[in-house]
């Protein structure tokens, strides 16, 4: 329909949208958090199982658009099995990528499908859709660090 749209709705994104990973609820959760975009109504819940600083399992439940759902799905896929430090680095890179900021050369991370989110930066109002799951994740991790139990985030 338009080249512009094709950059946003890449096949990978639509695949994650239609078959979101991490959809399955976990039987136990070490840290539960919720995120929301008040202006548009997207809602997300996230559960993490963490052991020895490694994210062993993750659940992401997102009610939202193709961008927020697929971003959450990619997140679930990519962070599983990674250490908290690695995950933090990935989140930073994703944020930079979405905001169109340069990504430092010395960061070597495995991006998986995440590259597909790059098209979002041309749609400024959609960036916060893609950010929702990542902001929630960071708040989750910070909550762990602060020894709190629940986190609540927004990308406004």
């Amino acid at each position, binding site marked *: *329909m*338009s080249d*512009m*749209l*094709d950059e*946003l*709705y*890449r*096949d990978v994104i*639509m695949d994650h949208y239609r078959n979101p990973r991490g959809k399955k609820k976990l039987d136990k959760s070490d840290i539960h958090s919720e995120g929301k975009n008040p*202006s*548009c*109504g*997207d*809602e997300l819940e996230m559960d993490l199982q963490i052991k020895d600083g490694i994210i062993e399992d993750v659940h992401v439940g997102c*009610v*939202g*658009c*193709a*961008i927020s759902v697929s971003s959450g799905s990619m997140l679930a896929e990519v962070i599983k099995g990674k250490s908290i430090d690695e995950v933090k680095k990935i989140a930073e890179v994703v944020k930079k990528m979405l905001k169109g900021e340069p990504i430092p050369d010395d960061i070597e991370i495995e991006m998986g499908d995440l590259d597909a989110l790059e098209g979002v930066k041309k*749609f400024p*109002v*959609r960036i916060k*859709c893609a950010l929702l799951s990542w902001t929630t994740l960071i708040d989750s991790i910070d909550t762990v660090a602060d020894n709190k139990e629940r986190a609540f985030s927004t990308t406004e």
Partner: protein
Amino acid sequence: MGMVENTIIKKSAEKGVLDINKIRKDFPVLNREVHGKKLVYLDNAATTQKPRAVIEALVDYYSNTNANVHRGLHTLAEEATSAFEETRSLTAGFIGAEEPAEIIYTRNATEAINLVAYSWGRKNIRKGDRIVLTEMEHHANLVPWIVLAKETGAELAYIPIDDNGCLDLDDLGNIITPNTKLVAFMQMSNVLGTINPAGEIIEKAHKRGAITLVDGAQSAPHMPVDVKSLDADFYAFSAHKMLGPTGVGFLYGKREILDRMEPFNTGGEMINEVRYDYADWNDLPHKFEAGTPNIADVIAFKPALEYLNNVGMDAVREHERELTEYALGKMLDLGFVKIFGPTDSAHRGGAISFIVDDIHSHDMATMLDTRGIAVRAGHHCAQPLMKRLGVSSTTRASFYIYNTREEIDEFIASLVEIRRYFSNV
């Protein structure tokens, strides 16, 4: 609420009531291109575009007159003050108020409602009193009352909606109880388009001795309004939704009620006498207008009202009714569009909320935007209504006097293409 029946309404495919081509020439922004396409602006329930006369009034004011009002004894100040008050008179006439002093300038409809919640509500609503709202209210006419109820211990009750998106008034006599102090409701829904029977609700409320507030943010721009014949106690609306500049709203209130109210914001202009330990108040409307008002935009709202008066509010309503009928018919024809709200254009305005398959409203809005079509997506500041409708968000197209059937045709064609595109990517 299920999908509405696919009744195809095609009454007047002929030329409409307005000379749209002439009207469109008065709105500079309609020449704008978006992503290489001519702008099709269907986000009028959020804010409308402005005719050249409004823009020119701003230029003229700032280039020739600009001065502070009321306290000035020089020529510029006198000119500014009299223009500022002329808008008030015209506004009073537009909604059928008894006198200009019953029109209070605010920032927007939201502030008008907050003024009532603070100045009237804090004084008249007590623990155990009831405030009646409707299930379809905008946050602007919801949150101030939720906060007030929490503060005072008053209870909230809601007039329900039926599956057609209309108020169900069958039980109204029981909902408006003798302890009901306020009945506050929208005259036209920004989500469902529904036109509510304001006169009937007000009459029932008054029988119980309750005060009424009508949120006219969506109705004042789109249909003839007469607060006198409605017998509304308060009426709130916004200039920016009816061809006027941003930053100007209105609270109409009956003088006998306004006179008995304490002020809201305090400061300059609104006082009679101030000592270090004492202050009393100026007369209406000044009592409620503290500090330097939004002078330029109030003055530039006059040509907006004149524009609407020239077109005629009956013609505005009829044009939009025809356009809505046309759009609803086409949308229902598609078969894959689910519409929320009544489908009989006689009972609704031109805000049409819908969903298409599993396409999220944000994606829909983005895709329409690449085709130059501006619509709104989300909860439309009506989260509780969204829940009631069983959705997290909808896409909304909404019309005004400059919209055409050709634009609706483009919108319809886009829906078809978008659906095809989205199922293929």
